[in-house]
């Protein structure tokens, strides 16, 4: 099943409330995905780039990580811990070095995302407990997407939870299942795209990253996904300044959208949208199958 939500703000006055709005939408979708939950949120850029990491042993791993990274990057590494996650702030050109060092370190650690603005928080557990442990309602930002998972294609783990990020400031959530992900994963790895898990959705995210790296816009990348991805999907996608939605041609997986002067919102069900401001007068519609929807800031 799975539940997905998304919010793209047009009115800056709502930015302080985006964490609260998204958390409420996410928790409403608990019935659709009780095993794991997560969000990707585009917050204020800090000094340098952001590298969001997760560890099952954060008390030991995070201090060791900073100590390890500062000498090899030759830069000050600021760390902001949030429960099992931490956002590292370091110069953008040092991100690749940091990832290599982390991968070779053997530390109990995984990279959630990189980017200027985006941070990803995801864990196994009920959506309410995931929202609470990271204090998601207190976060501000410009746009974000979220997912409540009922696993089908891979194990119930932090790595298997959504959102997935396969490129800087890019993220994706998915309701459905892809059937050609193994062949596509091999092809994308040959093209040099980093794919960390055996999860089908990560391949969908990696595909869009690959197309955008070739120069496609978000809209163009989603358009080509219609011919290259096989399976069931409703996708909601975020980029640094964009927000997109795509449903497969069969469109079994539900989707409802709402738009006002203040925001564009997505929910697997209308229930997820009912607390949004002005929903009673919003334009509410069901996105068409095989039709690309995207918004840019």
């Amino acid at each position, binding site marked *: 099943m799975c539940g997905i939500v998304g919010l793209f703000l047009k009115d800056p006055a709502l930015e302080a409330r985006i964490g609260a709005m998204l958390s409420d939408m996410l928790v409403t979708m608990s019935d659709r995905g009780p095993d794991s939950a997560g969000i990707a949120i585009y917050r204020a850029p800090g000094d340098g780039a952001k590298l969001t990491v997760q560890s099952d042993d954060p008390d030991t791993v995070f201090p060791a990580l900073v100590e390890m990274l500062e000498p090899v990057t030759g830069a000050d590494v600021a760390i902001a811990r949030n429960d099992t996650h931490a956002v590292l702030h370091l110069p953008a050109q040092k991100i690749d070095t940091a990832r290599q060092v982390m991968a070779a370190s053997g530390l109990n650690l995984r990279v959630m995302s990189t980017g200027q603005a985006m941070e990803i928080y995801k864990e196994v557990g009920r959506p309410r407990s995931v929202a609470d442990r990271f204090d998601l309602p207190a976060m501000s930002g410009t746009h974000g997407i979220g997912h409540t998972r009922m696993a089908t294609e891979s194990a119930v783990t932090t790595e298997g939870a959504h959102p997935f990020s396969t490129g800087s400031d890019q993220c994706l959530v998915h309701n459905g299942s892809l059937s050609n992900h193994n062949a596509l994963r091999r092809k994308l790895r040959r093209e040099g795209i980093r794919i960390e898990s055996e999860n089908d959705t990560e391949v969908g995210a990696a595909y869009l990253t690959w197309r955008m790296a070739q120069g496609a816009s978000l809209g163009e990348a989603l358009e080509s996904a219609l011919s290259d991805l096989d399976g069931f999907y409703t996708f909601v996608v975020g980029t640094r300044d964009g927000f997109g939605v795509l449903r497969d*041609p069969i*469109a*079994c997986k*539900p989707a*409802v959208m709402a738009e006002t002067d203040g925001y564009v919102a997505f929910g697997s*069900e*209308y*229930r*997820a*949208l*009912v607390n949004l401001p002005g929903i009673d007068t919003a334009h*509410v*519609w*069901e996105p*068409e*199958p095989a039709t690309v929807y995207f918004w840019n800031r």
Partner: protein
Amino acid sequence: MATTYDLERDGLRGLNRALHALAGSTPNEAWEVVNPRGSHAIAVGLDAPVDVTVRGSTGYYCGGMNKQATIRVAGSVGPGVAENMMSGTVIVDGDASQYAGASGHGGLLVIKGNASSRCGISMKGIDIVVHGSIGHMSAFMGQAGNLVVCGDAGEALGDSIYEARLFVRGSVKSLGADCIEKEMRPEHLDLLAGLLERAECDAKPEEFRRYGSARKLYNFKIDNAY
């Protein structure tokens, strides 16, 4: 007089339990359901000639398995509205999501806005009138009943259809396997006039085209008919 039920405050089970308790009676009072907030399974399994109005939009399966009741939604509905309806009437003032009226055996479903994919899938005697347009794979394996569409129909209309009758006023993106356009005879115009009137629709029967089964895909034997 109407009984007002606040769904947010008093919960879904209480509503359906109270409406089920009317089975076998002829209620004088109408019911009004407020604060539906997209909830699922509102007013399902009713079996009494009661009027129920839902003030707002609903989630999955509103009015499912209905017998006798008249259920009006002053809003839009999620997937599976009036699924497996047996008799009575369900009226949606807004739009309907996928598989509206799926598998319905009888009664009338009116959608004043648009319906999305798989409208009337496997219909078995229900009448469905959509004032707007419908999505792809509508009336798939439709066995009996009438689907009237005042707007356009999406891809693969009436795929693998049995004996349901389809009437479309606008364009049909494509016909599904074994679905063909058929002659509109006087009895069809009469049938359509009655359905349009019951659905509060002012479209003219002459503006519609009729579609149905070519009877090549399934083994049509009159002896198999009930």
